Structures are given as C-alpha cells and as structure tokens.
C-alpha cells in the first residue's frame, strides 16, 4: 500500500474539490530596469494527503510561486495574475483580512533557513505559542502548554525545559523542528516547505524529511515541497513538477519522471546526479546558464541549452524550437511535458 492510499483510507477526500488549485499563475516584478518574469503560467492542483514536489534550480520561479500562494509577496513591486483557489475560494480576489485568516490554519509554510526565519528576540515557546494566541485567542498559560506539546511532537528533547530558550541556543536541526512545530501548530490543510532541508547537513536532512512524512500521515495535509534536491524528491514526493524559467516543463509521478524523463531539461538533471550504477563515469552537466528572467529566450526557453533542439529546416512545421513556444501537453498516460519532441526524449 502506498502512502497516499493509507491516507485516503483514513481521511476521505472532499468530493470533487482539490485542496489547492493554481490556475495559470503569473508573477512579474516591475522594475525601472525592466520587467522580471518570475512565474509564467503555472498551473497545478493539490489533493489532501498528496505530496507534490516542485523541482527547479535557483531562479526557476519555484519559491516565488509559493510566496504568491502564501500571499507574502509585496505588491507592488510584484504583480500577480491568474487564479489561486484554496478549497474552492479564490485567494487573489479575497479581502486581505480574510486571506490573513487562511494563513496558519489553512496554508502554512516552512522556510529554508530557520535561524533567520525565527525572531531572535523571542523564546521559541513564545513564537510557537503565538499561533494559538493570534488565531485562537489562547491565554499565555495555555499557549505555552500547547507549545511544549508541539515541541514534543516534532521530537525536540526535553521540550518543557527548552521552551524558554532562544533560537540561537538551538542547533540547526532543532531550529528547523521549531519552525516545523510553528507551521503545523494549527493543523494546516496545506503545508508549503520551501527548501526545508537545504540549510541542514545530510544526516539531519533525512530526519527532518521523515518527520514531515510522519506528520503528513497523521494529519492528511497536502504537502508542497519546493526543492532542488533530487534525492529528497525521490524519497518523499508522490508527484513532481519540474520548473524552468518560471514555467512547468514536465509533470508526472515521481517514479515516471525519474526513470523516464520526457523533457530534455529533466533528462539533463537526472544525468547530472551521481549514481551508484554509473560509478567511475563522468557526470554530464547541463551546458549553458539558467535564463535571465528579464530576457527569457524566445520559443522554448530551454532551447539554447537543449541537446534535442531542432532549428530551421531540421524542425517539423510549427515546431521550430527557437521560435515556437511548446505548450505543456499530454505526452504519455499521466505524463505532461512542454517539449515539441518529448516522444524522442522518451524514446517512444
């Protein structure tokens, strides 16, 4: 039985409605020097208990899209268009006050670097307890008690003794646990984890991911995992969306995408990772640089770096990589990719 089956057997999904639907999301930053197109038409949906990994390199728009969903981008300079529906309600059309009430109990977020994401002047117990005081009007005594319970739940040893300690008195792994405790305090329906393990060393990484998995099984929340770490994706995610230049270039289940990539970029990513079977061989990096988001290449944004590109006469009509922008299309059952020549990449 897979994890998603366990959850669906204990927690029946609400009929029809996805937890979160992102529909043709665009985020631009208008600056004096030009417009930066950070997110360009991203769509996905998330079901209860599902883990969706959003994979991409720095500057692919993965964090910005999460921040747009979270509603923590400053507008201006950011301009957000498209649809973000949480349990069927359009977050972008909502009053700021209503949006604020969703943050915490509805959608919650874990930040990459817990040391900078925790306020240095408050004890960790105060910060975890703040969730209960803000959203449920809990008393200080009650908030503290529940903070200790949460710290126990994320396996911080001697929680009752450490509740009055400050963030700088914790180790990196413990701090990230505090951050997780804050994020899950109100049993959110959706948890967005923005590179939750990037700042941690490898042994601690595995524990934090295990903790997130366990918590998800307990609560049935939807988990969006933003990362550039292929190993982490492989370990915990059900589905993966690969982002490049602010758009999704490939989507499918983790097993499918990892074993048979349908987009040249994904293929490049897989080849750039050391593998036990390929021991002794050379790693193949993706040539070139990630695109400048203020000047995204015409046609397929990946074409300047693509090993499968077809230009000029070599291209099929309407599928010239340098001029025709490939839409995200169904390339195999349950597989979507934004490439004119996905079938070739798949080797069909």
């Amino acid at each position, binding site marked *: 039985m897979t994890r998603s089956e366990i959850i669906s057997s204990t927690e029946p999904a609400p009929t029809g409605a996805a937890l979160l639907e992102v529909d043709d999301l665009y985020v631009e930053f208008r600056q004096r020097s030009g417009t930066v197109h950070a997110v360009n038409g991203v769509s996905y949906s998330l079901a209860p208990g599902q883990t969706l990994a959003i994979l991409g390199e720095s500057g692919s728009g993965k964090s910005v899209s999460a921040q747009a969903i979270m509603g923590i981008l400053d507008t201006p300079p950011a301009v957000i268009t498209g649809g973000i529906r949480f349990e069927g309600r359009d977050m972008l059309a909502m009053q700021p006050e209503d949006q604020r009430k969703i943050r915490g109990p509805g959608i919650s977020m874990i930040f990459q670097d817990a040391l900078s994401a925790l*306020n240095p002047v408050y*004890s960790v117990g105060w910060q975890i307890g703040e969730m209960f005081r803000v959203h449920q009007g809990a008393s200080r005594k009650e908030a503290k008690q529940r903070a200790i319970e949460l710290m126990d739940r994320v396996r911080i040893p001697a929680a009752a003794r450490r509740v009055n300690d400050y963030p700088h008195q914790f180790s990196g*792994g413990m701090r990230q646990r505090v951050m997780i405790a804050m994020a899950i305090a109100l049993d959110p329906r959706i948890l967005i984890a923005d590179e939750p393990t990037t700042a941690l060393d490898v042994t601690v990484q595995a524990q934090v991911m295990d903790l997130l998995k366990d918590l998800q099984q307990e609560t049935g929340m939807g988990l969006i995992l933003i990362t550039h770490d292929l190993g982490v994706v492989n370990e915990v995610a059900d589905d993966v969306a690969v982002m490049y230049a602010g758009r999704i270039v490939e989507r499918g289940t983790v097993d499918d995408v990892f074993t048979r990539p349908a987009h040249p970029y994904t293929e490049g990513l897989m080849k750039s990772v050391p593998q036990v079977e390929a021991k002794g061989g050379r790693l193949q990096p993706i040539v070139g640089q990630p695109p400048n988001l203020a000047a995204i290449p015409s046609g397929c944004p990946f074409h300047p770096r693509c090993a499968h590109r077809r230009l000029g006469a070599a291209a099929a009509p309407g599928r010239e990589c340098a001029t025709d922008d490939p839409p995200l299309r169904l390339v195999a059952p349950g597989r979507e990719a934004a490439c004119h020549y996905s079938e070739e990449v798949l080797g069909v």
Partner: protein
Amino acid sequence: MTDQQQRDLLHDEVEAGTTTGLASPSVDVTSARQNSLWSDAWGSLRRNVLFWIGAVLTVLFAVMAVFPQLFARGQDPRACDLANSKALPSAEHWFGYDVQGCDYMANVVYGARNSLIIGIVAVLVVLVLGVLVGALAGYFGGWTDGILSRLTDVFYALPLILGALVLLRVGPSTSIPIINTRGPGAVALALALFGWMTAMRLVRSQVIAVKSSDYVAAARAMGASNTRILVRHIMPNAVAPVLVYTTITIGVLIAAEATLTYLGVGLQRPAISWGLQIAAGQDSIRTAPHLVLFPSIVLTLTVMAFIMMGDALRDALDPRQRA
C-alpha cells in the same frame, strides 16, 4: 558551540525518528505562564550592575527635583549676599557662592527640577515622534514613506537652535497652551519639535532592514496582522539604536536649553536651571571655575545615568547579548 547545541547535534545524529528518554515533558517548568519579551528583559536587567547604578542616580536626581530642600543643606537658593560673590567652596558651603553671592549648592540642587523636566520631556517627545513617524514610514514605504520622509526633511532644514529660537520668540504672543508660557514645558517642546528627525531616520532605516528579514515574512505567513508584525516583530528588533541615541540626547537637549537661555529666549532668571548656571558661569570661568564645574558635574552624571540605563535596556532586549 554551546553545550546545549552540542547535545542537540548528538541527538540529531543518534536519534533517527524515535523518541528518546530525554524528551520527557516532566522536567521542571519554571513558570506555567509564557514569558513575555518584557518580563525576560526585566529578568536580565535585574542582574545588570550598570543598570542599577544608572537607576540609583536617576532616582537620586528625581528626588532632588521633587524635594530640593532635602539636599540644599538648609540654604535658600535665593537668599543672597553680594559680599560673598564668587566665593570658593568651603566646609560650610560645599559648592561656594555664585556671582550674586547665593549659596551655589542650593542653586545647583534647585536647578535639577527645570533641567530634568526639559531633558526628559523633550526626549520623550523625540522618542514618541521619532519612533511613530519612523516606524510608519519604514513599514508602509511607498507614498506614506515619501510624505513622512519629506516632512522630516523640512524639519531637518531648520537648525535646532534657530527653530527653537523662533518658536520661543513668537510663542508668548500666541494662544497655544504650554508654548505661550516660556516655562520649561515650552522650552522642552521647542527643542523636541526641532530635534526628533535623527530618531525618525534611525527608526525608519532599522525598520526597513528588519522588515525584509525572513522572520517577518514567516510571521506574515503564519497569519499575523500588520499591527502585530510591526509592534511585536519589527519594533523590538529595531529600537536598540534609537534607545542609545535618545539617552545620549538627553544631555544634548539639557545643554541646548543653556544656549537658548544665552540667546535670551530660554528660561530666564529668576528661574534656576543647570543650563542657566553653566551659561552664566562661563563669563567668569578664570576667576571662579567652580561656577561651571558643579552644574557640569551634575549634568554629566545625569546624562551618564540615562546612558547606562539605555545600554542595559538595549542589551536586555536582545537575547543574544544576555550572558
């Protein structure tokens, strides 16, 4: 790395998903109620020697301001005999006599009231104006910042002394309360009104720096309101520089009062203040240096007391500075 962090790390590495005996919630809890920022800060202040020296001095000067007769050794500051003019300190009269032949110790003691009122009232107004305007400008940015910053620039263009001079000169002929009295309240307000801008800029730049920090984004992502973010998350991290600035400014403002008096618009005799005494004493600094020395010493002690308390408070508000 501290011992605790070492233990955490050990735990991180050993514990692989199972709870250990360490995580027993029955360890003693010092208090069931959640500590606030201020109760933690007070706990740290209580153990700070500098804070207590500053506090004792401040209380001493405050009592002196309210009940000067307790410290004047039975002398009346206005009972003068010109025969004693500029007499040097003696066993009977510790601070000697001033130009008019009045007991100088009594004068210095009675001067505490006006000087402290001016220094403290002015600095409180500076603090309130600076923090309020600076925090709003820094937090909301955009056109709010534009308007408030330009307003600050307008005040910056007017020099402190010139602005206060004009206000105090025109003040008595207006019907604005306090300003039309020419008392210490008017002097304090005049000084504060043209002296709050540096505090505003300090707070504004601090707030801008703190605003873009991850923990503010995190607080927003957890559903905290604007007010809560500003008051609970930004301000405690932004007040340190302005606290230090204002405690030093108390002395500057008390001294500025002397300048205004010298220019003929501040407090006037028969009012008694340290500023007046220092200004008057300068004329005879070669023959009677004690006339400048004693009011300067008490002024310095006052400023020092506030600086010590300000420093201690700054450290207390930053958990990383606590021992």
